[in-house]
């Protein structure tokens, strides 16, 4: 394999591993604040017990996010020096603002949130929790500004091949930002909701059915049931926005080769890019035209209009179906479980089992969604401005292969350890009565 492909795989591996953890912590921070607020309002110790379990999940996820994020900041230089040399005048300030406004805020107040409960007054501890949640969300905002600008670049001019900013307002609020940011924040909410519910369902199945377990289960399932319809709406609007600005990506998502009306919605197909056809199509007639143009005869762009300038079709096509498939599953499971939880106050054993299986479903959907949008941007790194090939470093292939192998080994090991520890944290959340039970901070 050539060095560019290896460098792309390495960046994809790093950013895929990284995004798993912010996806959890962005929303879990707000969840913890909510739980804390409930405890302060009701004085119910069960909420404090919920807090104690999920703050541990948060701490572990946060640490994994931090260390994999540091890796990212170095990889720009080690593998993609062309990126900053060409678009650094736009990307630089955005990244700098992320570090300055978000990273220090979350890192510092995380220390107080995790370890400061017996050293600071209750209000300051709650404030620290709020600032951590704000920090993670701010971080998401800045990085999505940059990512959205890479998809829909505006507000700049090119002099001697280098990008110079001309309108920062336009750059920050570029056309795809509102949709992408909303879609990602909702994805984080869903990921955290299913994680919260999944760990609680695991405890419930193991006959740990105290009030805090049911509270966590209800909160997680309800959040998921509320967020998923919003996400489907946001996803649809994001798709229409992409159709406007990156039609080749939408053509790949739909697996549509010719620009025409009455384009079917493909439930399944095997896109064959060499011959520019699909095999084994299972389709709903005019479905894609209806969704994208709100009319059966609406014209949908086809890949043949973008020969040599469109992304690889199969990965985008399949990743899109995985994302939508998981989304539909989330809708069914969350509504089914929410209905029963609110009527009977507990899940059925089958529902609990399904929720356990869905614990990390948010990860699958989020990764699939990112693959759709990022592979869908190819061959561009910055749409219409910088091709991925132009940004890669001259580091030889064997060296990149070595670093890639090292990262992959460590990431696989860490994911296994992470899931293992979360499971154990959940199962041991209630220590045996004879043991040293943690003293609750009643004063707060």
């Amino acid at each position: 394999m050539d060095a560019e492909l290896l460098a792309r795989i390495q960046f994809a591996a790093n950013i895929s591993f990284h995004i798993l953890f912010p996806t959890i912590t962005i929303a879990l921070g707000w969840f913890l604040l909510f739980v804390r607020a409930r405890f302060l309002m009701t004085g119910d110790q069960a909420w404090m017990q919920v807090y104690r379990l999920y703050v541990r999940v948060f701490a572990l996820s946060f640490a994994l996010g931090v260390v994999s994020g540091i890796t990212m900041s170095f990889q720009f230089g080690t593998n993609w020096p062309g990126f900053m040399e060409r678009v650094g005048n736009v990307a630089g300030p955005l990244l700098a603002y992320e570090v300055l406004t978000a990273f220090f805020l979350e890192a510092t107040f995380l220390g107080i949130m995790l370890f400061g409960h017996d050293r600071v007054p209750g209000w300051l501890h709650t404030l620290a929790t709020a600032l951590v949640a704000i920090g993670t969300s701010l971080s998401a905002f800045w990085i999505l500004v940059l990512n959205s600008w890479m998809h829909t670049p505006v507000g700049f001019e090119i002099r001697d091949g280098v990008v110079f900013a001309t309108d920062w307002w336009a750059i920050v609020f570029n056309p795809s930002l509102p949709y992408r940011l909303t879609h990602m924040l909702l994805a984080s909410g869903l990921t955290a909701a299913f994680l919260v519910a999944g760990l609680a369902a695991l405890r419930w199945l193991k006959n740990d059915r105290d009030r805090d377990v049911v509270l966590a289960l209800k909160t997680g399932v309800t959040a998921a049931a509320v967020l998923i319809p919003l996400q489907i709406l946001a996803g649809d609007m994001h798709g229409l926005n992409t159709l406007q600005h990156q039609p080749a990506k939408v053509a790949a998502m739909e697996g549509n080769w010719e620009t025409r009306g009455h384009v079917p919605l493909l439930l399944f197909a095997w896109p064959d890019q060499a011959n520019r056809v699909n095999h084994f199509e299972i389709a709903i007639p005019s479905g894609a035209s209806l969704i994208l143009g709100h009319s059966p005869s609406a014209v949908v762009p086809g890949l043949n209009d973008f020969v040599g300038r469109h992304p690889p079709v199969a990965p985008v096509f399949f990743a899109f179906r995985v994302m939508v498939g998981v989304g539909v599953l989330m809708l069914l499971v969350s509504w089914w479980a929410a209905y029963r939880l609110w009527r009977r106050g507990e899940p059925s054993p089958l529902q609990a089992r399904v929720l356990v299986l869905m614990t990390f479903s948010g990860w699958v959907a989020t990764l699939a969604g990112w693959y759709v949008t990022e592979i869908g941007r190819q061959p561009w790194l910055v749409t219409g401005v910088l091709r991925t090939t132009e940004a890669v470093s001259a580091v030889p292939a064997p060296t990149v292969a070595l670093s890639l192998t090292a990262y992959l080994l460590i990431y696989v090991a860490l994911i296994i350890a992470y899931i293992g520890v979360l499971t154990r944290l959940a199962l041991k959340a209630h220590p045996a009565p004879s043991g040293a039970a943690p003293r609750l901070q009643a004063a707060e």
Partner: protein
Amino acid sequence: MIDFLFHPTHLPVIFASLMGISILLYVILDGYDLGIGMLMAVAPEPDHDTMVAAIGPFWDANETWLVLAVGLLLVAFPAAHGMILTALYLPVLVLLIGLILRGVAFEFRAKAHGVERGWWTAAFIGGSAAASLAQGWMLGIYVLGLEVSWAALGFAALVAVCLAAAYVLIGATWLILKADGALQRRAVVWARRSLAFALAGMVLISIATPLASPRLFAKWFEWPTIAYLSPIPIAAGVAFLALWRVLARLPQPGDRGSLTPFLLTAGIFALGFFGMAYSFFPYVVPDRLTVWQAASAPEALSLILVGTLFVLPMILGYTALSYRIFRGKARGLTYG
């Protein structure tokens, strides 16, 4: 004042200074927690929890100074960022894997028991050592102008060991502040032992740098420059001597003087850093790329500077708040 700061020829210098401050703060702050990580290799098992507690609330924010330093290099001097990090590809890999291992081991360790806990402790120690050695190695290669020769590699290996020793030293002095009883007494012994290595490292770099580059030799040893610069090595020498004397007397009743060794060590770090910064300025890649050649557009730099001037005081403020909240001796950590 504003015109002076935002003048196109001043901006790169300001950003080089900001990057320098970040690196110095990183080396001092993450230096002590990396050092404590390595010291766990020689500390008895029952002390491990206290040692972890001594850095628990701080390590994450400490590491953020590295992100800021690399971030400033990336956004202010993109050409240099590419050149330096491509040349240092493998040591950067070792550094990152070290940082990943120790960062996660910290969390995993707190949630594990028995044999598994032992593994994560080992990952914490190994990761801390790998990150420290890699940083020293990178410093050595950078000092000699990113050259790859056997002599440069030998020098880099030496700097790697010495920087790790310096981190152990500052880690031990942090422990003197945060621990009491037997652990504090042990930390005093560790500090005394690592002091000699750190001193040797500083002397070595001070001798090797001017010998390796005629430009640097001239920059340091021409009259009258040498007279203006002499306070730096003299102050460093005095600080080493003072540290040696203070360590010989610790611990004292009532925990008097337990902060002094850390402050002296941080002072030594700062002096070494200023010496090096003087040597390299105005180059951001030694003898190849000056800060002006490597800088981003003035518009981009101005925009970042506005934010920095607003936010940096806030960062320093809440960092101070955090250190104030967690002042005093370290106790076992519990999540709240």
